């Protein structure tokens, strides 16, 4: 069985550090790849550009996608993922600071599998990220591969 991975799409280095720290503490750190903007995320998932010869043949078990991203916003990334047959069923969790209703609505409309607000409180944040990682890697069954 191939090791399952997480793709974290996060432009804020501090949030990235805190997220990775939380995942490290539940021993998931070796299975996390990071994209720092929307374009990069799409390249990674579609194996284009710098990721054209990505080693792992598998898609990640889950994409943790921020909304406020440079170049392409998280919602635009989601839209393109859903429009492409290769990624149409890929589990995507929106992980954002926003508690805007509109963001939540658009995320679900565009086919997000989950919407999680990043808590400001550090302890809460760490717990949330850890739970997410464990759930999507250990508990959730991925869609059948093609």
């Amino acid at each position, binding site marked *: 069985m191939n090791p399952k991975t997480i793709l974290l799409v996060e432009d804020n280095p*501090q949030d990235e550090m*805190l997220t990775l720290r939380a995942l490290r503490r539940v021993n998931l750190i070796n299975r996390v790849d990071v994209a720092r903007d929307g374009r990069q995320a799409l390249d990674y998932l579609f194996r284009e550009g710098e990721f054209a010869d990505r080693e792992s043949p598998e898609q990640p078990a889950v994409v943790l996608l921020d909304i406020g991203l440079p170049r392409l916003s998280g919602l635009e990334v989601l839209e393109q993922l859903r429009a492409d047959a290769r990624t149409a069923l890929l589990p995507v969790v929106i992980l954002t*600071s*926003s508690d805007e209703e509109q963001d939540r609505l658009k995320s679900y409309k565009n086919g997000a599998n989950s919407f999680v607000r*990043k808590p*400001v*409180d*550090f302890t809460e*944040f*760490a717990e949330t990220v850890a739970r997410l990682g464990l759930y999507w890697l250990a508990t959730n069954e991925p869609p059948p591969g093609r």
Partner: protein
Amino acid sequence: MIDELSRLLSVNGYLPHGYCLNWSPQLVLTYVVSDILIFLAYFSMPLALAYFARRRKDFPYRWLLVMFAAFIMACGTTHLMGAIILWRPLYGLDALLKALTALISVGTAIALWPLIPQALKLPSPNQLRLMNEELQKEIAERKCAEEALRLAKEAAEDGLQKERTIRAAIVEFSEDAIVGKTLDGTITSWNQAAERMFGYRSEEIMGHSVFMLIPPERQADEEKLLAAVRHGESVKLYETEGVHKDGKRIAVSVTISPIRDKEGLIIGASKIARDVSERKQAEQEIRRLNTDLERRVAERTAELLTANHELDSFSYAVSHDLRAPLRAMCGFSQALVEDYGDQLQDEAKIYLDQIDIASRKMGELIDALLVLSRSTRGELQHDAVNISALAERLLAELRQSEPERQVTVQVEAGLQADGDARMIEVVMHNLLANAWKYTAHAKAPHIRVYAEQQDGARRFCVADNGAGFDMAHANRLFQPFQRLHRQEEFPGIGIGLATVQRIIQRHGGTIEAQAQPGKGAVFCFTLPDMCANSVRDSKEAYYES
């Protein structure tokens, strides 16, 4: 025969009559005087009769008068003879005269008798007088009646004349042009207003066709109107155009109706035209103003839309971008404690705690600001809100959050309001949470929710007997981040009432507070019917779309 006559007239052989009287002077004188007076009297009578006959030509028995005159003159002659024979014995002549008189008298008497019945039929003067009086009376009455009739007739003619004059004046001086025309459109009547409206004098236009008052493209309209009139129909307030003598167009409102003769046959049409140019201009002006207003509203809407978009972007930025650094400050200070706690002195840990506390506090402020900013955005929903049930639920939640507190609550049943249910919940949540918070130090905390009428408006009130505040600072109450209590007394960030006021204002209502330090506070707000706010709502809905 001659002899006989001469013998008869002869005086020979007879003695004068005086002898018989012995020539007594008294007797002779009496005889003579009497006979002569009688003779004269008798002969005067025919004169009177003749005079009578002449004056009364209508007298029916004129022949009787002649006979009577003859008879009385004959009698008179015999008396004259009587006087003569006193001295001359002409007895033969006297006898002859007497015989003649007898003849005439008898004839007259015979003629008279059959006349009596007829004469009786002749009205007597008295009867005549009565009849006359009767007649006079009748004549007077007739005259009276005639006079009355004449007066009545005059009055009637006078009234008719007056009515005709008034009618003519009504038509002539009407403010509306009144034009009479035949069924083929020939003008037969033209009043002053028509003259003013179309510029033609009556003598210029009478007998001409009404079509000369109508612009070419409207002639078909006039045909239609005339056709309607021919069918006995009236057309009311038909808006069309006319042409002035100088060629200028006039906007007119026309009412046209058939004119009928006594038999009810339609013989023409009356056309009442009112100049509506001013009204049309006013309408155009209103349209122009409306267009202008719409343009300005559109401009303003666009401006507001832009401003709103900017505000949206701002809130979005606040919500996303201000939180991340906070999370970093809070997160790394905690990570420092967790990962390197054993290398830190206690004081260093206290400082790190302060960073944590401050960042949490700022997180709360950001959240509160977002709530405030959201209360100014979003379409207002029209919901029927059960204020009583809402208050009961919120109070139950508060009680659950602090089960150790004993607060008596009193919620009036059946309080209903129109508004956006979620926003009203924010309002009630803030007011009740405040009441709950500020009664923390009260001896017997009491919270009351009720409604009252004031100045014709229904006000919903939340009252408590808590800390209250000084009314001198009431103006700062609803401003964001303004607080009337120190943090250590009552914690808070001062955004709740600003949010409440903003929501109430968006609903078109008002909110007021009354308080006394140490005695409690009461907050009352109104929520007008939502339909009154539909204009504002729809505008806001537009911003949102």
